[in-house]
């Protein structure tokens, strides 16, 4: 096997406060190749914190036996070293597009800033407009000159993805990147990511609540619960998951063809938590 893009071994994240320590990511280990890896799990299970830790962006206390990108350790990088990686070799699309966009800066200027390295302004603008078109924005010229508040929820989310595309990363971490998109545009945007994985050997971590989407789009799935990885599955076998937690999540999902009067909700079981060695 070739060198994995990302290696994570026994990642732990803790938040300390006056009322005690909150251990939100517990002994998480996985590797990522040139593939599409999904992380699913209920709200608060640690998906975003795991993702942020990879980029050195969690406010919590991080410890790990190994956290390596393309063979290089990410633990204890200097700010200068991070600048070469973050937003260039590893890019993240954050969960809240409206918060990640600067409200007083035109979309176009933000796109140009993200691409700020190669080529003339005119060439970069052409490229930025192409990216807006690629994510199916109907009127790229208008959006290029618009401010974030003039965009619909899904348009803001697509701008975030366009911004990622202009940086051409080797590893993309996408945190609920398509939750605000209509289903057609969603699949078209995912097809772009699929191409990047297949033709440019990008690695993709895809965080989502949409189990059906994940099972059809990704290669592998990590299922998180209370900061731990409960099970790892082949994406196409997600529907046959054995663990009661994963089964519970599948059962909560409304089904288009068979709506039920009252949806089942998750019944949690403390025994799902594995002991963590310190």
């Amino acid at each position, binding site marked *: 096997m070739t060198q994995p893009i990302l290696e994570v071994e026994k990642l732990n994240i803790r938040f300390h406060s006056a009322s005690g320590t909150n251990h939100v990511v517990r002994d998480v280990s996985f590797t990522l190749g040139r593939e599409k890896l999904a992380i699913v799990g209920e709200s608060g299970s640690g998906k975003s914190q795991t993702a942020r830790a990879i980029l050195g962006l969690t406010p919590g206390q991080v410890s790990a036996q190994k956290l390596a990108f393309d063979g290089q350790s990410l633990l204890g990088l200097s700010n200068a070293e991070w600048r070469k990686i973050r937003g260039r070799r590893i890019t993240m699309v954050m969960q809240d597009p409206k918060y990640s966009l600067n409200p007083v800066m035109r979309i176009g200027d933000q796109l140009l800033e993200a691409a700020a390295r190669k080529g003339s302004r005119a060439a970069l603008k052409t490229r930025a407009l192409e990216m807006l078109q690629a994510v199916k924005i109907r009127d790229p010229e208008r959006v290029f000159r*618009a401010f974030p508040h003039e965009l619909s929820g*899904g348009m803001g989310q697509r701008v975030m993805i366009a911004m990622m595309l202009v940086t051409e990363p080797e590893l993309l971490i996408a945190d609920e990147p398509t939750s605000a998109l209509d289903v057609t545009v969603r699949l078209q945007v995912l*097809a772009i990511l699929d191409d990047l994985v297949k033709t440019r050997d990008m690695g993709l971590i895809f965080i989502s609540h949409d189990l059906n989407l994940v099972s059809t789009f990704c290669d592998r799935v990590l299922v998180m619960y209370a900061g731990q990885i409960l099970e790892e599955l082949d994406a196409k076998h997600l529907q046959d998951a054995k663990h009661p937690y994963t089964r519970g999540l599948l059962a909560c999902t409304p089904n288009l063809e068979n709506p039920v009067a009252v949806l089942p909700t998750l019944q949690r079981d403390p025994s799902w938590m594995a002991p963590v060695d310190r």
Partner: protein
Amino acid sequence: MNDNMPMVEVKNLDVTFDTGRHRVRALAGVSFAIAPGESFGLVGESGSGKTTVLRVLAGLIRQWNGGITVAGKPLTPDRDKDAKRAIQMVFQDPYGSLHPKHTVDRILAEPLQIHGIGDIENRMKDTLEQVQLGAAFRFRYPHQLSGGQRQRVAIARALILRPKLLLLDEPTSALDVSIQAEVLNLLAKLRHELDLTYILVSHDLAVVAQLCHRLAIMRTGEIVETADSEKLAKGELTHPYSRQLLTASKGFDRAAIAAFTDL
């Protein structure tokens, strides 16, 4: 109010945004009617004007053309307090819509104060009960709540004014499937108990089938099709764009995506 009178009737609604640099025709002649107690879904393309429809009804957009009646009364851009109170909205963005520095208590008291309603203590207690949040939550801040709890606070803020019409803009798209199920069950129960009428915007056709009786499908500022949820569940929508949405709902499929056209 007689039985045949729609709760909401929208005729030829037209909205154009003029930012000085651009004119965007967000709605181009949208019409629909919703019966009292009905739950009506709005789905469609991102940027097609779904949120704009809700914002007009909620009185947040004052420049529009067309005719709107609510419970038989024409809705004018300058509506009175009672008309405003009767229509409440739960916003698309669950993180941004609650003031981060206000407690749940203050978030819920504010609409009552704005509308000069005195009975704050009792209303607060009743409403928190309705959305199944214990009294202990009253003094928490939004960041101390889970996503589902935050969304319940947003719903409580809308309910506390005892509206007739509730506008729900993607109320569950940021929630995990378990919390989504809780919120959907809660909304179904509340509609029944409080005799509410809903307009629900969602990209998730299964969520619409779960909560709504009927739905409209929008594209570029227009409604392309209106149908019963039964038709939706059976996959019997007819407009080509609606059919494309049905296909896309089945999951990621390169062959299907390659066949999508800009209808």
